[in-house]
């Protein structure tokens, strides 16, 4: 028996998912998160999980975890005091940003505070030009004064980012060496190590984020890894935001990559489930208490983007608006909207019904949870309409106050619109569904992908309640609800390959570059990749190197990422890059311009250590079969007496038609009329439009 364990540390709960490698059998545990010392919750969850499955620590072969510590450090401004060193004349690069205001019209807005305050930002005389040539040599005589300033500032870490260091890193490297020598114990991050890519603000910002969260991440990982090793578990791994796990050393080299750790794990789990079910196009939909996230998986590949702001409000639209701190590391391409079970419904001055962006969170929570919430939420609407159990949830542990939900819905929404609480709840669900549909559209339609060709994979605490309604909205005919949807992200952690990414700006015309020159660039990166995989003791047969390139028409400013052929590059391979780009441009924007020169901006390499594949499966317990009915409202049918089925007791190959509600410990699935559900041998629910 060999088991893999994934731990997803969320805001409210720490989820533990365990999978047995040979059989794919799943075990789960859910315990409260312990923010003062995360290790406490993690150990409690691990103990619960191991005990339930009767597994010893020595049977565990892999332990991965997802953390929100990097995001929280930025949101709560808890990072380390750090200093910045820039090119003479450019110390304000972090503060001037792209000179954009967050909002067009909000009088009370302010940009987010710069994570390195101005008094800790220094300059040194040096300059490299746009061709990578030194035009002003580094003035090393300024170093002693710089060292004294950094010492006086109390900085624990230093971010160094010079202009054009992605073309010529010599000055940065020299300053790095001199500072390390003069400032023992102070960690130095160089932009040419962290992110050798064009655009000085984004590069400096990524480097600054690393410096800011580095020390906190280090103490957190040290504490947590010694705690789990203390109970005999294997080395702790961390989920990176690009959809692979990394070891602790790599995570600390580039702390910014741990930013979207948890959400990335959910997408990975969806990709694995898609592969197991033989689905080549999957839209993943993850809805929790405060946000809903969507992502696409095509032919088993998750999509990543290098445009991301951490701690901002912008990622819903994939439009960077300056509300957060940009990092240019690969992040799973998610569209996120502020819609979750806790989103509050309200009516504005003009009489329009709004849902969110404010959330009741876990405290006070929805009115129906009876923890002091008095504002009607999406969860309250779901209780009123009969989607959620009107008596209790979590197998009886959470009592539901339906009357309270009705009263709040009536007072806060119904009265203003002249509607009953039930009518108001119907509209609340319709509005929140429309908001979430936008997230699904952003990752599909906006990328030129037709959602009707996809299967919707729904998970998260609330995902399966809304998923089929969203599918209808988008004209999709197939929805899958995996086993254990409520802890699905933790499940993703145990199926994630070891992964590390390298990138380099080359900024060359594709036509002007020889295959040999490009090959030489990849060879250098591939040597680094193999070194990492050897270091992590990945057996040779499980090593994989993936080449990609960011390419654009020469006069455009944004790139599309395309795959680069494997093996020794030749003229045909160069042609294949061009063809792939024209095709992707046509698919994304509706036109291609084959006469226009193509520019190679960044080249990328991912080194992967592949895990043996798994098959997810849920035990079925016919003894648990239960069936009852309750009144449930559906958009076209109105209120109907609807069957409610307990999921653990549904036999394999069972088939039933909507309307139906499927309940389990961790999630509820709503099946409207017109849809039929088939349960497969592994416990997946397959819903299809009849």
């Amino acid at each position, binding site marked *: 028996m060999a088991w893999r364990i994934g731990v997803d540390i969320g805001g409210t709960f720490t989820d533990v998912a365990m999978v047995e490698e040979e059989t794919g059998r799943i075990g789960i545990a859910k315990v409260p998160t312990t923010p003062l010392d995360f290790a406490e919750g993690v150990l409690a969850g691990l103990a619960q999980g191991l005990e339930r499955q009767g597994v010893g620590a020595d049977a565990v072969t892999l332990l991965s975890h997802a953390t929100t510590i990097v995001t929280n450090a930025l949101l709560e401004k808890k990072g380390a005091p750090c200093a910045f060193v820039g090119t003479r004349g450019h110390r304000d690069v972090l503060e001037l940003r792209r000179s954009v205001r967050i909002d*067009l019209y909000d009088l009370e807005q302010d940009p987010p505070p710069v994570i390195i305050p101005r008094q800790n930002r220094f300059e040194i005389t040096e300059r490299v030009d746009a061709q990578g040539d030194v035009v002003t040599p580094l003035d090393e005589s300024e170093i002693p004064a710089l060292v004294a300033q950094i010492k006086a500032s109390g900085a624990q870490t230093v971010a160094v980012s010079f202009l054009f260091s992605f073309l010529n890193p010599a000055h940065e490297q020299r300053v790095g060496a001199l500072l390390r020598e003069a400032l023992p114990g102070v960690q130095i991050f160089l932009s040419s190590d962290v992110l050798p890519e064009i655009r000085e603000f984004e590069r400096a910002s990524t480097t600054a984020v690393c410096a800011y969260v580095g020390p906190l991440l280090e103490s957190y990982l040290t504490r947590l890894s010694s705690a789990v090793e203390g109970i005999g578990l294997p080395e702790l791994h961390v989920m990176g935001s690009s959809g692979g796990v990394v070891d602790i050393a790599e995570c600390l080299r580039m702390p910014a990559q741990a930013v979207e750790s948890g959400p990335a794990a959910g997408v990975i789990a969806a990709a694995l489930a898609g592969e197991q079910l033989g689905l080549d196009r999957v839209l993943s939909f993850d809805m929790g208490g405060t946000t809903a996230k969507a992502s696409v998986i095509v032919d088993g590949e998750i999509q990543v983007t290098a445009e991301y702001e951490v701690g901002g409000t912008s990622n819903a639209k994939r439009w960077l608006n300056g509300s957060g701190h940009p990092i240019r590391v690969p992040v799973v391409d998610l569209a996120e909207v502020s819609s979750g079970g806790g989103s509050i419904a309200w009516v504005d001055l003009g009489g329009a019904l709004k849902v969110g962006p404010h959330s009741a969170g876990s405290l006070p929570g929805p009115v129906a949870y009876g923890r002091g919430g008095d504002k009607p939420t999406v969860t309250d609407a779901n209780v009123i309409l009969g989607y959620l159990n009107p008596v209790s949830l979590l197998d009886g542990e959470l009592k539901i106050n339906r009357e309270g939900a009705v009263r709040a819905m009536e007072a806060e929404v119904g009265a203003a619109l002249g509607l009953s609480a039930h009518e108001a709840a119907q509209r609340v669900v319709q509005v929140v569904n429309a908001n979430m549909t936008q997230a699904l559209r952003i990752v599909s339609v906006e990328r030129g992908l037709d959602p009707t060709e996809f299967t919707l994979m729904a998970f998260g605490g609330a995902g399966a309640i809304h998923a089929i309604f969203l599918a209808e909205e988008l004209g999709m005919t197939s929805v899958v609800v995996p086993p254990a949807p409520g802890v699905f992200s933790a499940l993703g952690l145990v199926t994630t390959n070891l992964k590390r990414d390298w990138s380099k700006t080359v900024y060359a015309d594709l036509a002007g570059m020889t295959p040999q020159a490009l090959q030489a660039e990849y060879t250098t990166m591939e040597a680094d990749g193999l070194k990492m995989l050897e270091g992590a003791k990945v057996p040779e047969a499980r090593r994989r190197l993936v080449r990609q390139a960011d390419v654009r028409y020469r006069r455009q400013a944004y790139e599309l990422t395309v795959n680069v052929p494997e093996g020794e590059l030749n003229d045909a391979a160069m042609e294949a890059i061009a063809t792939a780009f024209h095709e992707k441009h046509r698919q994304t924007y509706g036109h291609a311009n084959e006469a226009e020169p193509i520019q190679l901006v960044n080249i990328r390499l991912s080194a992967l250590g592949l895990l043996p594949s798994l098959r997810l499966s849920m035990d079925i317990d016919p003894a648990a079969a239960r069936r009852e009915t309750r009144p449930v409202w559906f958009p076209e049918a109105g209120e109907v007496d609807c069957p409610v089925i307990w999921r653990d007791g549904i036999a394999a190959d069972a088939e039933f038609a909507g309307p139906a509600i499927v309940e389990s410990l961790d999630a509820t699935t709503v099946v409207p009329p017109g849809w039929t559900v088939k349960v497969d041998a592994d416990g997946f629910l397959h819903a299809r439009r009849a």
Partner: protein
Amino acid sequence: MAGFDTPNPTAGIDAARFEVVKNALISAAEEMKIVLAKTAYSPLLKMAGDYSCGIFSATGDMVAQGPDLPIHLGSMPDAVRSVVQTFPEPVEGEVYIHNDPYHGGSHLPDVNVVMPAFYEGRLLGYGCVRAHWPDIGGGAPGSYSAVTEIYGEGLRMPPTRIYVDGKPDENIERFILANVRAPSERQGDLRAQVAANRRAVDRMGALAKKYGTDELLRIMDAILDYSEVMMRAALRGIPDGTARFVDTIDGDGIVEPGEAHDQTFKVALTLTKTGDEITLDFEGSDPRVKGPMNAPLTVTASGCFAALKWALDPKALIPPNSGAWRPVTVTAPKGCVVNAQEPAPVTYANHEMSARISDIVFRCLHDLAPGRTPAGSQGTGGVTIFGGQDYRNGNTYISYEVTKGGFGARPMMDGMNGVSTCIGNMLNTPVEIMEMSFPVRIEEYTLAADTGGAGKYRGGLGVRRIWRVLGADANCATCVERTMTPAFGLDGGREGACAEVTLVLPDGTRERKEGKGGFAAPKDSLLIFQVPGSGGYGRPAERDPEALRADLAAGYVTPEAAARDYPEAFEILNQAGA
């Protein structure tokens, strides 16, 4: 909550459907923006975002605006309306182009591309993308010449059909491209504008298919009514009354023979608010000026609308569309500098006059309803253009950049440093992209200390950007306001620092330049361009000493300026430190 006595604009439409369709239209306008940024060729569009996208009704009302530039709010509907007038019977697959400031355009470089949307043969409305082309012909690269008639400012296009059956009319396109610099780059930008419009048309068609054409059109009307109701409610929230302010504008770019400097001129505003309506009357403003600082009324109105939106809707709850402006009337005598008539030149006025006008509106509103408006801001677009031949490859180049200064201090907060005025929201162009694209080196890009007006709440800082011209001589054009008239403070707050433009020749000679105009910048010369800081709010004596301490630590305020401008707080800090 909807406790007001006006008719409900959404009556008869399902509450959920209204919200869904409204958001879908806004989302479509956002998608247009993304498509344009990702496919355009010129750095001004792809990096700096100098454009706006919108969805319009069949009569040319703006129904949804993307997250773009407030300045285009007021004048884009006029641009679409003039297309509607010229082509009253649009056909599917047609696209129109138009940049005429005397028919709803703003200035010649702002090129509108308009595409009608149909479903089952019925007209739904239009998509429109207004994008600033870095060049539209005329006397100088970048089309920012200090000329005295619009004919010298570049190619002027009345509403013209440029696509038929979804394909470009090559006659028209050739004609346009023959009149602009770097034509193949312009063609790429034009294609990007059409691609963005296609997105709008697709989205509108899908909504009509889903909800029915009649229902979509009814909801589009209701969205306009909804904004109107919200704006009227906001107007009722401020006292009735009249306020007047006369401001000085710092020249039109023309230095007449015998004059030492560009001459200033006056803009006067009388603002009258009664019940749920407001009138802005510019009677008493100076007549047209010789150079391109003349604002067509549509540009004047844009500055007014943007300022009203900020002041009356500080939490940004009212969807910005044409309905919001129904309770607002903007008037000015024909032929005056804020209601320019053909053939007055207009290029600078588009951003300079509308920025200054927004400050004038804020100043009047402050008298009427204190505590709702910011102090004076930078009042300028802060434009710098270099043009010439790139020594590295022999290509002709035109750069166009904006440098952002101080945003006015607010009733409860300091001003913002180095962001746009309330009428814009363009991005800077990254230094590395600039230097890769053009033969210049940016030697400094920093916040300028002591440029924010002193006050209980300090004004936002101005910014200094210094370019070195590399390899060959260049033509340089600048356009910046407030070189003489600083941004005003409010409630006892002090003025911000003025703009300064200096050319340092290779031999070290320093030449102070006017804010607006063109000059030769020899190889290896330095252009030092400092944009204005903004005004402070409240008396400096009331500044929290801790806020001053933070400003001193950051270097926003120097000790000398602190001793001079904030003696009380500075004294407290000194005692605490002693």
